[in-house]
C-alpha cells in the first residue's frame, strides 16, 4: 500500500468579520491541494471567504492531564470580571 496523504487541519473565516475557526480536517498531498480540498469539503454552502490549512503534525497542543495547573489559577481571580466591582446605581451606566 502506498503512503497516505498527510492530515491537514482546516480553519475558515466566515463573512461577518469573525476570526478563522477550526472546522475539521482532511487529507491532501500538499498545502495547495489541501486548500482546494477544503474548498470542496467545507465551503459548499458559502460558509466562508478565507481558508487556512496547516499540517496536523505541526500543531502543538496542550495536554489534557495539565488541565489543573494550566487553568485552575484563573478560577479564583474573579476580580478580572467587571461584575466584581460594585458601582452604585446613581453613578449611571458604566
Amino acid at each position, binding site marked *: 500500500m502506498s503512503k497516505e*496523504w498527510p*492530515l491537514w487541519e482546516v480553519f475558515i473565516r466566515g463573512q461577518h468579520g469573525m476570526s478563522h475557526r477550526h472546522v*475539521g480536517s482532511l487529507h491532501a*498531498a*500538499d498545502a495547495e*491541494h489541501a486548500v482546494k480540498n477544503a474548498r470542496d469539503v467545507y465551503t*459548499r454552502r458559502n460558509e466562508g471567504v478565507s481558508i487556512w490549512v496547516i499540517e496536523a503534525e505541526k500543531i502543538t497542543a496542550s*495536554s489534557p492531564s495539565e488541565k489543573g495547573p494550566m487553568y485552575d489559577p484563573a478560577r479564583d481571580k474573579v476580580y478580572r470580571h467587571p461584575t466584581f466591582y460594585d458601582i452604585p446605581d446613581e453613578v449611571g451606566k458604566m
Partner: protein
Amino acid sequence: MYAQMVKSEATKDDPEQLAAFQARIDAGEKIEPKDWMPEGYRKTLIRQVGQHAHSEIVGQLPEGNWITRAPTLERKANLLAKVQDEAGHGLYLYCAAETLGVSRDEMTQMLLDGRMKYSSIFNYPTLTWADMGAVGWLVDGAAIMNQVPLQRTSYGPYARAMVRVCKEESFHQRQGFHIMMAMVKGTAEQKRMAQDALNRFWYPALMMFGPSDKDSVHSSQSMAWKIKMNTNDELRQKFVDETVPQAEYLGLTIPDEDLTWNEENGQYDFTEPDWNEFFDVISGNGPCNVDRLSARQKAWDDGAWVRDAMNAHAEKKAARKLAAE
C-alpha cells in the same frame, strides 16, 4: 442504523478509571481524542464511526446511478449536490474516526475485505427515477432520525461531525419528498412508479434501525457510554409515526396491511421487517452487495496512481523549494 449491529467491545481497564470515565460521561462532558478512554469505548467507536463513514460513501452509488438520467437539469443539479454532500459526510466521519487511532487507508482496507460493514439499505437496487424520491424521503429520513440525537454523543469529534451532517442533511429528505410529490401528481404510470418505490423501500428502511431491542444485545453498554442515544425500536417507532402521515399526504399506501393507529398509546402498530432478510443482506447476500464492493474496489485500485502521483509531485515541489533556499 448506519451503524447496525455494531458490537460493543469488551473492556479490560482499571475499574477506578472506568468509573471516573463513566462519571464524566454522566456529567455530560465530551470526551476528546487525547483524553483517557477505555479500550472498548475506543474500539466500539472506531467500528461505529467507520461504518457510518462507509455508509455515506457506499450510499453515493445507488444515487450516482441516476445522475446522468435525471429527468430535468434542475433535478440533476439537486441530485448531484446531494451525492456530493454524501462524499463530504463520509470525509467528516472518517476524520472523526481517525482521531481514535485508525488510519483512513486501514478503514478502506477493512471495508474492502469485509471486516467493516456499511448500512444494509445500500445493497438494494435503485430501479427507477421514483427510487430517488423514495431514497431521499425514506432512507435520508431514517438517517436523520438517528443522526439528530447523535449530535449529543459523548465523543467530541463524532458529535461535531454529526452537527455538520445534520445541518446539511435535511435538504436531502426534502428533495426526495419533492420528487415523490411530482411523481404522484404526474401520470397514472408515474404514480404507480412512486407506489412501487415505496413498496420496495419501506421494509429495508425499517431495517436501517437494526434488529429489535429484544435481539440487540450490544445496546446497553453503548447507551451508557452515550455513543448510542436511543434504542433501535424507539427510533423505528418514531420513524413510522412521522412517515405514515407523509405517505397519506402523497396518496400512497404503506405496504403493511396490519398498520393501524393505536389510540391507547398514541402511535402506529406496524409489521416488523423480515429479520432473516436483514441478516442475509448484512452478511453479504443482498441484491447489490457484490456490485457495491466491486465498485469501491475499482475506485480504490483505479485511484492508486493518482494518490501516488500527488505524493510524488508534492515531494518534488518540496525538494525544489529547499534547493532554492
